[in-house]
């Protein structure tokens, strides 16, 4: 049976893993290559490295970070953050990424999705969408630029367009829940997952075991992404997978 994936996300700034709360307040969490391997050994089904560097100088270290991280990692490895062009994508693929995640640049020029998919295949293109509830209703708007800029686009409609243009997966982050540990926004993942024929990765708000059970069961997510809960030892990956298995969620365990 196809299992539900638990994906470890490493936010990287200037070659170091950091973790923020609701896109702010960054804390140092370690070396990306070491943390990626540690997560893989602990049972992460996939690793995502998101470069959140604000400056071009810091971004220059990205290819080196990706290369070092990919070297000893034998599970799928996605790299995102600041990829604005096919040329940017080529750099991270050549450094060893299996997939790229694109966000603002895809909204600015949706043909970028197709151009990367034509060269590397749809399975290599993850479109990341940062979504925020509109007036607390079950309606969601897509944001860009690290959550700073509203686009006026309906997040689910944008996800459907991304699929049509060749995206292989959607990485869907709830801005309302990001970094809070208060649980995923299951409404957001559900409306998106049922509207799409490609996998949806839920992100933002992962906390206790029940939050993961909920996002798979109520949220129809195909995968769930979490960062802070693993970096700071608040939650061990193996314990989470064992608990999910006990709750009847199919997971890759033991690995």
């Amino acid at each position, binding site marked *: 049976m196809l299992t539900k*994936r638990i994906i470890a996300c490493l936010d990287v700034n200037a070659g170091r893993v950091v973790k923020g709360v609701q896109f702010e307040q960054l804390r140092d969490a370690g070396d990306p290559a070491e943390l990626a391997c540690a997560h893989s050994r602990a049972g992460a089904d996939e690793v995502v490295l998101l470069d959140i560097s604000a400056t071009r100088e810091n971004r220059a270290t990205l290819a080196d970070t990706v290369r070092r991280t990919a070297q000893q990692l034998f599970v799928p490895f996605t790299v995102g953050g600041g990829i604005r062009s096919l040329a940017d994508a080529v750099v991270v693929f050549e450094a*060893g990424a299996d997939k790229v995640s694109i966000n603002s640049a895809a909204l600015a020029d949706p043909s970028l999705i197709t151009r990367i998919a034509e060269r590397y295949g749809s399975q290599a293109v993850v479109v990341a969408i940062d979504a925020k509830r509109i007036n607390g209703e079950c309606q969601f708007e897509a944001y860009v630029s690290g959550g700073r800029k509203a686009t006026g686009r309906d997040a689910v409609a944008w996800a459907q367009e991304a699929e049509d243009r060749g995206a*292989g997966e959607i990485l869907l982050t709830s801005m309302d829940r990001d970094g809070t540990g208060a649980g995923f926004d299951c409404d957001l993942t559900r409306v998106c997952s049922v509207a799409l024929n490609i996998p949806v990765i839920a992100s933002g708000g992962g906390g206790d075991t029940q939050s993961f059970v909920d996002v798979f069961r109520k949220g129809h997510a*195909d995968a769930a992404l979490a960062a802070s809960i693993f970096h700071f030892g608040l939650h061990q990956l193996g314990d989470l997978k064992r608990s999910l298995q006990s709750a009847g969620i199919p997971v890759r365990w033991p690995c």
Partner: protein
Amino acid sequence: MIAVIDYRAGNIASMKKALDHLHADAVVTRDANVVARADKIILPGVGHFSATVILDQEGLRGVILRRIENGVPFLGVCVGMQWMFESSAEAPGTPGLGLFSGACGRFAQGVKSPHVGWNSLTCRDGSRLLRGIPSGSFVYFTHSYSVPIVKVTAASCEYSGEFSAAVEQDNMFGVQFHPEKSGDVGLRLLANFCDLPC
């Protein structure tokens, strides 16, 4: 020397990286002369079935077939495994290598496609490629087309019905999943392939 055939589709680097990790002598190439000298051949691949036309353009079809006839172990991965069959619904005009009879089909409606993620294997006894890999082991898949269960099926997988996750006959091996991305199970499989007598 293992020739890893680069046909400009997708990313070959991760296969090379896994083979390097296993200390295998692997060369990424699309040079027919190099393939003609290889002790083993791996055809990795992600992407579209039609990308395999490059194998004809580069004169690789003939040399691969000759090497296989000479008993050289061959491993096709993902689209590389699909290419071992006669054809695929993904690219009806593109002929496969035809080592095995059969064609690749699309997943039925009603399930998400592509099939992405970790799924478990049901292994047939006696497979050399899957030595030490028990049924129930998880491997990583990403594909929209698949090979049905056939005579040469060495492992099956379930996603909207059963399909061939691995095929094996004599010196010809194929896997639909990505061993280079399947953690320790995948590395074990690649080590089994590297350890086959030439």
